[in-house]
């Protein structure tokens, strides 16, 4: 029989997302240290806890998990941005850009929008996950790809496939995420 109770991670997730939605960045129990953390700590969580450690256990399944996690965040961000904008793409992108800047995820810039071809390309400059990381052999920002995929999916209400085609960690100076509308 299916249980309808939330796990502790789901409870924490809800509180974190509600905090993002509220736009309130102050946080309790951090009176001296405040709400901000060093980027290297985030990268340790992203590339170690949600990267190499997950890869040790899941092997080729690791990028899927990371992409799916990013997509969950993107869907939540999309819901925030889609509220009260009457399906206006420009306003939506503007709100997403602002949200990504507020959260220090990166500077999101639409590079190409071809709705006839069903393709969007978004740049993430100063990407939080791979800033200061070099010499990798393939794009590593699966989380951001999933996040962008979730954001686009929310607006168009269609299945999408997001792929990181350029990555700062590859020496590309930016992360470029291509989204195909299915």
């Amino acid at each position: 029989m299916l249980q309808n109770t939330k796990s502790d991670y789901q409870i924490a997730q809800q509180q974190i997302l509600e905090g993002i939605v509220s736009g309130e960045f102050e946080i309790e129990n951090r009176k001296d240290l405040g709400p901000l953390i060093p980027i290297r700590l985030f990268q340790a969580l992203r590339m170690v806890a949600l990267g190499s450690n997950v890869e040790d256990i899941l092997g080729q399944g690791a990028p899927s998990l990371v992409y799916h996690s990013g997509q969950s965040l993107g869907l939540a961000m999309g819901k925030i941005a889609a509220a009260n904008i009457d399906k206006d793409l420009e306003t939506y992108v503007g709100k997403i850009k602002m949200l990504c800047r507020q959260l220090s995820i990166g500077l999101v810039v639409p590079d190409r929008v071809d709705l006839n071809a069903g393709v969007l390309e978004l740049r993430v400059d100063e990407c939080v996950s791979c800033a200061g990381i070099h010499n990798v052999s393939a794009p590593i920002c699966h989380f951001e790809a999933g996040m962008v995929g979730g954001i686009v999916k929310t607006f168009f209400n269609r299945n999408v496939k997001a792929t990181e085609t350029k990555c700062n960690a590859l020496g590309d100076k930016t992360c470029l995420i291509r989204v195909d509308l299915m």
Partner: protein
Amino acid sequence: MSNIHLLNTRKSQSSEIDSILRNLMSIQGVSAAAIIDNDGFVTHIHRDSEVNTDAIGASVQVVFGAAARSAAHVGHHGTNMVICENTEGYILSTPIDAGFILALVTQRDALLGRVRFELKETIPVLKKLFSSYLAN
């Protein structure tokens, strides 16, 4: 070198994959047949009922990856198939190429040996198709 593999699902060859999935769906007890890419995205699917494709795609990749890792820990290298036996049926997943996986969902009345045989027969055909897609 980047290992990005964009599979253009709009290509006309895509119908060959659809045809293969349709054939698999005709096996007794098979209720869904899907191809999942290395990011857990379902690129092709045929199914009898509604399925959360995002969730099933990621889950299949994660389960396959975890099973392959656990096999490696006991010195078994080269995982060819993962079978998940559930009260309601089976989920079988098999690697194709470049991280793509073919997954079949069955009901309880499916003949596991038959499904497994058909899956093994199908993989070389899909491998050939994918190698030509990925080369282009």
